[in-house]
């Protein structure tokens, strides 16, 4: 079993196996990654950094592609506007 790490998604603690991407943490937390201009919830589509649908805010930085970034302990992840 890999070690578990804990990060925050929209203010709530989420524990995930070490090494998974932030996109996985969003799915585990049941959170949308971002909202479209018209307000629709969006999440990972291509899973390989091309479609930009999985963008989230990480530690205050907007528009990070969650499918390309590994989770780190204590990370503060938020659904992008």
């Amino acid at each position, binding site marked *: 079993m890999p070690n578990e790490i804990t990060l925050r998604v929209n203010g709530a603690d989420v524990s995930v196996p070490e090494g998974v991407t932030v996109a996985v943490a969003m799915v585990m937390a049941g959170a949308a990654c971002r909202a479209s*201009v018209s307000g629709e919830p969006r999440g990972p589509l291509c899973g390989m950094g091309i479609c930009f649908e999985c*963008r989230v805010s990480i530690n205050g*930085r*907007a*528009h990070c592609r969650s499918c390309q970034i590994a989770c780190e302990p204590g990370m503060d992840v938020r659904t*992008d*506007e």
Partner: protein
Amino acid sequence: MRSAPYDVVIVGAGIVGAACADELARRGMRVAVVDREMIGGGATAAGMGHVVVMDDSEAQFALTRYSQRLWQALRAELPDDVEYDQCGTIWVAADDEEMAEVRRKHEYYGGRGVPTQVLDTRELKTLEPNLRDGMAGGLLVLEDVVLYPPCAARFLIERAQKHGAELRLGVSVAKIGRREVLLSNENSIAGKIIVNAGGAWATALTPEVEIKKRKGHLVITDRYRGFLSHQLVELGYLKSAHSVTSDSVAFNVQPRRTGQILIGSSRQYGAEHKEVDQEILRRMLMRAQEYMPGLSSMSAVRTWTGFRAATADKLPLIGPWPGDESLFLATGHEGLGITTSLGTAKLLADQITGSNPEIPIGPYLPARASEECAHAE
């Protein structure tokens, strides 16, 4: 088949042509608008959509302020997608020298009924916390507006159509003048008056007109809501934008309703190709980052260029073209065409219908340019 002549045939469906069509149609004239592409596909789509009062000259002030008031009056009728937002402009002063210019501008605008507010270092930082520390201050011009020009042009064309104007898109024009617009397909459209509203391409149809293409670049970022609240323009812009010979860049950023940030600006003469110039783009973005370091970590989603129609004296050409009594010009608006489109339309329609204009028309008459040519010879 030849139809009865229109009262006015306007060549160019950019925002200037659209505004002229709207004004003339609402005054009861039979109007046609032709464009080789689409509504607002040239400088109208490329520009920022900053409705701004400027004071390079009394005539520039008069036309920009007159036009801004016309936009204000139109506001209630504009559809939501025009994104009309009176966010105001802040002219940012980096040092004491530019702060002196802030005070001069404040006096000038105040004396002419334009509300402004002088900001010191702290007040500026409070209004725009993402500007770098140590700015001297700025001038907040409260009634300046941001809008989305292509939709504004479409609105004006549609309103003109409600008043009987006819629109022909995808129509390439080969020649104009002598009460006729000759199309590339050899058909022609007859008009008692022909208006050249071709923007930077006006010279293709009226070669004697002294207009130069002045290329600009813009970048739009992803959405970063709350990062920027006003249109910010560096006062150093007054130094760089006035250079008529060399390429220049200036810090000029605009908040869009989506939270995106439009980043400008650049000015180049003699660059006829529409491709992005990486060196100018680099300089433009470096300049923007000097003022707002936070821009450097943002994602840009699109970069494009456009061509301003620049005249030698920085004023547009509005009125009859000497030598052909049927030909009128409405072009040469350089970077102010969105702002001054509505005033241009009023002044053009006043001349065509013989009405009294609300501001003196002399500085914008095309005859001034041909007189300058005559004197130079």
